């Protein structure tokens, strides 16, 4: 054990920092859940790619830098420190990317990873259906193989980013006789394909962050099948399992929130009770613990280890932490904690984050589902 950064790692940090200092937009972008804001964020993805920063862990041939997870964590720390824009393509770079890396053919990797890196393909997720939320194995949208293409019919919902995205990836039932998690396949679908209808769903904040996607005889080439026909569940569950959980929620985001919370409290401490001080310490302590745990995990992975159901522990931890931190901020703000007026920038940002933090314990498998996974796979309790 040697938990210090090497000279090279520190130099890498400096390189990231100076690039971000020059390139991060001085004026915050519009919300990525608006048409105009979405395109601004796409432009930012292009800028990132021009500096070769789309995804530092990917191999060079796919637009990455071939660096390890520790460097990726350093990149993220600098990214959040610089308050750089949210990654509009996180479904692509953090979710589909690692999946393609493990299960994609060479052709699929070249085609999709490069377009992902340049921001030309922004991805949405197509998992849930009206009858398949927490019970994802109840998926009914069908993809019937007809020669060299699939014909897709059905409906996806809660599809994050789908309102303005270019592509979606998800699970479809390719074996119509199958039940539950058998007979599902992992297919990539362009949202421009005839027969696809996207209906945005306004979220809690009033903006269309997710959408319903309807499929009406949508024809998709067989080349867009990831892995083998019928292997979809395995790919969706096991793909780069650890890496996915780790990459999607790097600790820097929560540490940045904790740091801001501490400053907010310090500025307002004269009219706050000690109870809020205790919450602020908890925020620092937990975000710091999350970071330590992720560096621990990254070290294990670099040494050839792998992580499975453990990512469920992390998902519960960061989502509850995020909510607690925003709740605490609103308490510190007192009566300003309802102002989303443009004259009250700080309060408005915390309130936006507060509402967003309610999503954490729900998406990517509710925390209750994660607890079932922990109990059954890590503690050995019966189904």
């Amino acid at each position, binding site marked *: 054990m040697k938990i210090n950064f090497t000279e090279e790692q520190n130099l890498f940090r400096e390189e990231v920092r100076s690039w971000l200092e020059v390139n991060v937009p001085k004026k915050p972008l519009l919300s990525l859940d608006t048409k105009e804001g979405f395109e601004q964020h796409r432009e930012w993805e292009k800028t990132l790619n021009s500096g070769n920063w789309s995804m530092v862990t990917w191999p060079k041939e796919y637009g990455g830098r071939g660096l390890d997870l*520790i460097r990726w964590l350093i990149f993220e720390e600098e990214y959040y420190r610089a308050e750089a824009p949210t990654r509009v393509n996180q479904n692509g770079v953090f979710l589909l990317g690692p999946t393609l890396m493990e299960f994609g053919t060479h052709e699929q990797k070249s085609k999709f990873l490069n377009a992902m890196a340049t921001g030309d393909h922004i991805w949405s997720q197509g998992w849930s259906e009206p009858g398949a939320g927490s019970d994802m194995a109840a998926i009914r949208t069908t993809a019937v193989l007809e020669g060299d293409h699939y014909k897709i019919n059905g409906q996806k919902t809660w599809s994050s980013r789908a309102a303005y995205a270019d592509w979606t990836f998800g699970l479809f039932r390719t074996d119509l006789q199958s039940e539950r998690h058998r007979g599902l396949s992992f297919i990539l679908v362009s949202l421009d394909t005839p027969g696809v209808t996207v209906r945005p769903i306004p979220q809690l904040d009033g903006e269309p962050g997710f959408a319903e996607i309807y499929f009406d005889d949508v024809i998709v080439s067989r080349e867009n099948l990831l892995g083998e026909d019928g292997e979809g569940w395995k790919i969706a569950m096991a793909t780069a399992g650890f890496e996915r959980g780790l990459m999607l929620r790097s600790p820097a985001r929560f540490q940045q929130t904790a740091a801001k919370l501490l400053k907010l409290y310090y500025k307002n401490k004269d009219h706050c009770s000690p109870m809020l001080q205790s919450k602020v310490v908890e925020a620092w302590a937990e975000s710091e*613990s999350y970071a330590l745990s992720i560096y621990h995990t990254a070290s294990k992975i670099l040494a050839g280890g792998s992580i499975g159901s453990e990512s469920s522990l992390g998902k519960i931890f960061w989502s509850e932490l995020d909510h607690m931190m925003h709740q605490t901020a609103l308490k510190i703000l007192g009566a300003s904690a309802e102002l989303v007026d443009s004259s009250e920038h700080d309060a408005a940002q915390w309130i936006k984050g507060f509402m967003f933090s309610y999503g954490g314990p729900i998406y990517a498998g509710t925390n209750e589902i994660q*607890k079932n996974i922990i*109990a059954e796979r890590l503690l050995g309790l019966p189904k």
Partner: protein
Amino acid sequence: MNFNFTEEQLQFKNTVKSFLSDECSPDSIRDGWEAKKPFNHDRWNKIANLGVLSSNLPEKDGGFGIDQVALSLMIEEMGYAALPEPVAEQIFLINDLMPLLPDSIKEEIKNTYQTGSNFISVAHPLSPNPLFLNDAAGLLLFNEDTYQFALTEDIDFISLVSNDPSRELSKINSIQKSVSSSEEFEKINSAVAARGALMTGCLLIGLAQKMLDLSSLYALDRTQFGKPIGSFQAIKHMLADVAVKIEFARPTIFRAAHSLLENNPKSALHCAHAKYMSAKAAELACKNSIQAHGAMGYTWEMDLHIFMRKAWSLMACWGNEDKQQDIIYKTLTSSEEELGVLYTF
């Protein structure tokens, strides 16, 4: 950056784990309680023969010179077994502190302490009632601005009863003769407080893990409504919550140990963080474990309380959650420039 343990560090942990699973069963702990003699000298000698008591002494003094990271791995196992003997105290609060002490006191301790046959107890404002003073050869005592070493025979003390029958405590009335010093008091006092926090943190993580394991086994075994209670989500979720707390407390222990090893200027903060997180994990482990056991968990017969009692005591001494919180807040706000610094390392 490498957060993995070395083979050697894991070997120490595994040696202690397997020894304690053979030699420190809940039944053997109960035997000590019933005899009102929780300190088992036979076990203490075996632990000494295993080399654990001298494991972190320099090789020239007959030790293995192992580091604080390996120590914390070993101490977690002592928590897991609820070991009554003050092994963690001896290696973490005496052996590890020794290099920092002034020669006058170091010499006295060296002359008094003989690995395996006796030990040195410690008292500090954060943990004022020393353990097993009856069995100790001497006491290292921290006051408000001095510290002193006294032989047990020169101390007038009375026994105190702990809620954990494995902990024999004393209250010191007066000390007739001692070697006292105030040399580098701030530094040494903060070093012992940090070690006390980290040591209790390691023990608490082990205890929390043990309570979770006992509860998982019980939930598999106990049936109601025709199936194991562990198949009900109410039970699953309670225990999963404990698993989450333990998972994110554990790395704080190793970071704190590593900071002591590297003389990191923030080691006091890191040790406070480790105790804070592990006390919270242990607290939830107690609450949810007894709940998962139902009425059985409330009995003397069930072993669960052996571990709960130790956890309750250790949460309270060497700085409880509230005290650690105070240290953390003061450190984080001690300089305006560093307020809200983002980085972990």
